């Protein structure tokens, strides 16, 4: 699946919720289900700056594709991280670097996108893209 296809899938999933509380309940569910990051990867280097919660993103390149894992002490933040992992993991660095995310707006989470927002969705996306650019340059 391409990044766009995965985004469309998420948008469809969220379309069934007409109540905001159900959306957050789903994010909490996703956050709870995301496997915890191995302790060795919870380093300052992987810590994303600009979040009120602590969020770590780890990236690994395998056969030309990037694989992400993440963790946070806030569950909603972790749920959002789970969605980002789903969209970006297994994709090629140049595709990740070039991606123009639509799903966050579409599922009604755009309030989390403003750069001043403390839960750092924008910082997470920025960090993912930085990893992609670094790996694209390195490969």
């Amino acid at each position, binding site marked *: 699946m391409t990044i766009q296809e995965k985004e469309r899938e998420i948008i469809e999933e969220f379309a069934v919720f007409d109540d905001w509380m159900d959306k*957050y*309940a789903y994010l*909490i569910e996703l956050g709870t289900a995301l496997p915890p990051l191995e302790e060795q990867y919870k380093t300052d280097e992987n810590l994303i700056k600009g979040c*009120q919660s602590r969020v770590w993103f780890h990236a690994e390149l395998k056969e030309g594709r990037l694989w992400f894992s993440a963790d946070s002490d*806030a*569950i909603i933040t972790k749920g959002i991280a789970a969605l980002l992992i789903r969209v970006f993991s297994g994709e090629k660095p140049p595709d990740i670097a070039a991606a123009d995310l639509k799903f966050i707006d579409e599922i009604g989470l755009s309030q989390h996108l403003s750069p001043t927002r403390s*839960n750092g969705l924008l910082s997470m996306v920025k960090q993912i893209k930085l990893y992609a650019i670094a790996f694209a340059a390195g490969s």
Partner: protein
Amino acid sequence: MFDVEKIRADFPILKREIYGKPLVYFDNGATSQRPARVIAKMDDYYLNWNANVHRGVHYLSNVCTDGNEEARRTVRDFIGAASEKEIIFTRGTTESINLVAYSFGERFIGKGDEILVTEMEHHADIVPWQMLCERKGAVLKVLPFTDEGVLNLEALDRLLTNRVKLVGVVHASNVLGTVNPVREIIEKAHAAGAKVLVDAAQSIAHTEIDVQALDCDFLAFSGHKIYGPTGVGVLYGKEALLEEIPPWQGGGEMIREVRFEKTTYNDLPFKFEAGTPDFIGIIGLGEALKYVGGIGLKAIGAYEGELLKYATGRLLEIPDFRIFGTAPEKSALISFQVGTIHPLDLGTLLDRMGIAIRTGQLCAEPIMQHYGVHGMARASFAMYNTREEIDIFCEAIRKTGALFEGGKA
């Protein structure tokens, strides 16, 4: 007679809805709302009277100058200062403290001198002193507090050596709510030969302050936390001390004569007010203080005290509700955690229910370190908050808790 419904009617913003829910504004510790008469006063000056102060010979300039100086006298009376020369307008508490850290520091702080702050200071009453210490080779000392959130006054006697030149103490903690015994601290500090700056940012809107009775050397507060505009604050300083310390920023208004060889400075309070002040903001602050004075801080304090008691009781009924700061003398705010729910998650969900609270490190990382937490949630009340709002808040927290328990592990 304190009538909360009448007060609420003075604040247009309290009628609005957030995500279709009535706004419950519990972030007054960060900034309060403004009553319509403060906004109207400032609008009137912008629409009809605007001209720069202290310079013009013309009518409008005189009106604004009079308004600016009337506000200064209002502040003087509000905090019981001896003279309007002791009232310096700044951008806020932070700038007031930075001014003292610079000017007092230039005159009185040398290598090896000590500055004493408490463990419960806001960053604004820590960082300027650290910067001063770095400039002068001075040392920052810290007075600790107990887990209850009470300053350890026995340690104060030990820490107040003759090297301490200045004590910075918060009147009411923005995290713990503790109202500190500043009068006693000032007395002890003076006996040890130190001056005292009181950070009144969180107390100014909630309790009566008389700087002469306190005998503090400096006191700082912000306008926007007492129903006034943002970007305006006050530094009070004893006249003799303000005379003795050098100006901070240079520019217009603070000068007497400018020559390339040597410039002389203006008299107090203008010596510390370089550049065009936010005179319309200052006039708005004066209006806010008149409004608060009309209601009376005694009545406000009594009402908020009841509110705090009610909220504390109701919130403690919630399972795993933990309050940080349980000092007997406490201002109307509650910092807390609920079970293992991250404060950010809690704040995000409460927001969707129309409730505005603060979350995070609350500009007081040392307090977070004291309790070994990465953040807290904080509900801070104002005179316009009600028991009904606290009920809505408690119900919303229970709902949030249920949402997390419902999340599949």
